[in-house]
């Protein structure tokens, strides 16, 4: 399926990054993304048209990540930096990454989804569709979520070094 292959090549990196930010673990993220594209493949194979593929991919990925986290009960492996990447980064950047990941992990799955979507510059409409938050409440919830995230980032209790 040529149409599917194009979507896969084009959007895999974006979808993968979203899943990493949601789950804090690149192995788990890769599993989720594989599942998401398998669903897309089967949908297209049946001849169904996915009208806005990127929106669909975001929504499905976020929902799968939220489900996974509800199932796992918590944000896992927060301290694990993706292996093999450490040497390419400055220690400072690595520290920031761990701190942000940890702070994201303190948010509720839906709030985390909102923050991740915001970092991807998605519209309020897309955020509402993916999270189930009412469109008219997205701005307020987002503003509150970002403040919560900032508070977690400043929380000295979780300082690593």
């Amino acid at each position, binding site marked *: *399926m040529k149409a*599917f*292959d194009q979507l*896969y*090549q084009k959007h*895999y*990196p974006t979808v*993968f*990054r979203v899943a*990493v*930010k949601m789950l*804090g673990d*690149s192995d788990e993220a*890769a599993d989720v993304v*594989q599942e998401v*594209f*398998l669903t897309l*493949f*089967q949908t297209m194979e049946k001849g169904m048209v996915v009208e806005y593929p990127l929106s669909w991919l975001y929504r499905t990925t976020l929902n799968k990540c939220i489900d996974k986290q509800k199932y796992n009960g918590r944000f896992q492996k927060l301290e694990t930096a*993706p292996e093999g*990447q450490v040497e*390419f980064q400055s220690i400072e*950047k690595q520290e*920031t*990454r761990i701190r*942000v*990941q940890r702070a*994201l992990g303190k948010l509720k799955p839906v709030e985390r989804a909102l*923050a*991740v979507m*915001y*970092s*991807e*510059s998605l*519209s*309020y409409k897309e955020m509402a569709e993916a999270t189930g938050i009412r469109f008219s409440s*997205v*701005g*307020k919830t*987002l*503003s509150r979520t*970002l403040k919560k*995230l*900032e508070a977690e*980032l400043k929380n000295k209790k979780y300082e690593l070094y």
Partner: protein
Amino acid sequence: MSCIDEDLIQQYIDEEVQAEESERITRHLAVCPGCAKLVAERRQWALSMKRMIREVADEPVVVPPFVAPAKSVPLGSLRKRLVLALSAACLLAFFVLHWNHPSAEKSAIEDELTILQHSDWPVDANQPFSQQGLQINLIDPEGNVTGYVLE
């Protein structure tokens, strides 16, 4: 107009307010240094939050090959039909055995009964089991071959 509340500022910097409302806010910012300062600060703050979250996963991503799943629907139904057909064949063999040798010789003969199966039996998964044309050949201890066609 009155000053802008925080939620509205968030929507304004995200360009998520209606055009009319947006113009109204822009006009207010031009005459209210307090709100203008707040909006500028919030805009910076939101940008830095975005950037920080993005940095959690900003390395180049290697796209792994996608493995398309094997088509499972016909296989599954074929397997189901095969199991059904073979169960029926066993049942048939059992009845044939009883019918041919109803008495005491049964246990001795059972050991020597041979069922020949056609390995190239053509199965059409779209046809009902009764139309598969399954044939079973039984060889009894005397070496007689009896063919049974399932209908």
